[in-house]
């Protein structure tokens, strides 16, 4: 055990240098960037986006009839008696509202949990309004503005490196 620990201690400077050293920094960064791009390319085929929910309902409404469709944080594009049209990742999604659904207006944000029906359309079982969504977005923008304002006071770009201004 102690021999293994000793060997590890002996090779640690090499491992640390390989991970963090200036030598090969560009190559390591390119490799990490390539892994990131590969992950993003894989996520493009996210089955939750394309083969379930509204994606599947739209592709084959008869086969997907009765399957769950979850439309999270969608914007109301149009309102009609007993029905809505939503848009976000998918545009122009027709939704039939259940009895006693909360009243919403064009521009509101809602989550709809329902089932696929021929048409294709979504028969909503639950409609969850998000009345505070705009406040959350405003708070996020405020935080972003604060971070942008404060970052130059805390960090400097010196000699091609990001260094603390302290």
């Amino acid at each position, binding site marked *: 055990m102690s021999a293994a620990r000793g060997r590890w201690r002996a090779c640690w400077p090499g491992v640390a240098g390989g991970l963090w050293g200036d030598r090969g920094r560009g190559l390591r960064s390119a490799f*990490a960037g390539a892994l990131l791009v590969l992950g993003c390319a894989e996520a493009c*085929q996210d089955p939750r986006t394309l083969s379930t929910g509204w994606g599947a309902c739209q592709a084959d409404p008869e086969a997907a009839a009765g399957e769950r469709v*979850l439309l999270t944080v969608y914007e109301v594009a149009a309102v009609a008696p007993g029905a809505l049209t939503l848009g976000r990742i998918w545009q122009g999604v027709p939704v039939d509202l259940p009895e006693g659904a909360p009243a919403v207006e064009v521009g509101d944000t809602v989550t709809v949990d329902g089932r696929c029906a021929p048409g294709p359309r979504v028969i909503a079982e639950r409609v969850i309004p998000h009345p505070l969504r705009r406040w959350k977005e405003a708070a996020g923008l405020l935080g972003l503005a604060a971070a942008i304002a404060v970052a130059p006071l805390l960090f400097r770009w010196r000699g091609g490196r990001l260094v603390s201004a302290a």
Partner: protein
Amino acid sequence: MLPDLLARAAPIALQRLGARGLPVPPGLPAAFMPLHLPYGMVLCAYLLAQLAPERDRPRAFVAWGIGMALHLGLDLLQDHQGVGFALLFPWSWKGYEFPLYGSEDSVWALPLLLPLAALAARSRWRGRAPPERDPAAPD
């Protein structure tokens, strides 16, 4: 904030373009999703740490990593109606969440968190060492 900036800003812009009639493929906004998952966070923290001076890189990696993990930890406690986050991506698409509060409930905490953040920033600012004075500089 960084995970949202990396993973949400571009999809929101793409969705806005889609709403204006531009043909945005439905899978494209999902391409940014790994940047909000452990897989993308570790790689982003590593890439950002490479910007720091050599001796500070491990510390920078840990600092970026802890910040992003804290963000993901809080997001995991939000109710996403059973969708959750694919924590094991790219090996599994299974979503995880531990819903304790709604996605907008954090707005109610703002009146408490904003003054606390201001206090923390003030104390950090006061704790900063004064800039070193050049002895050759005239008084």
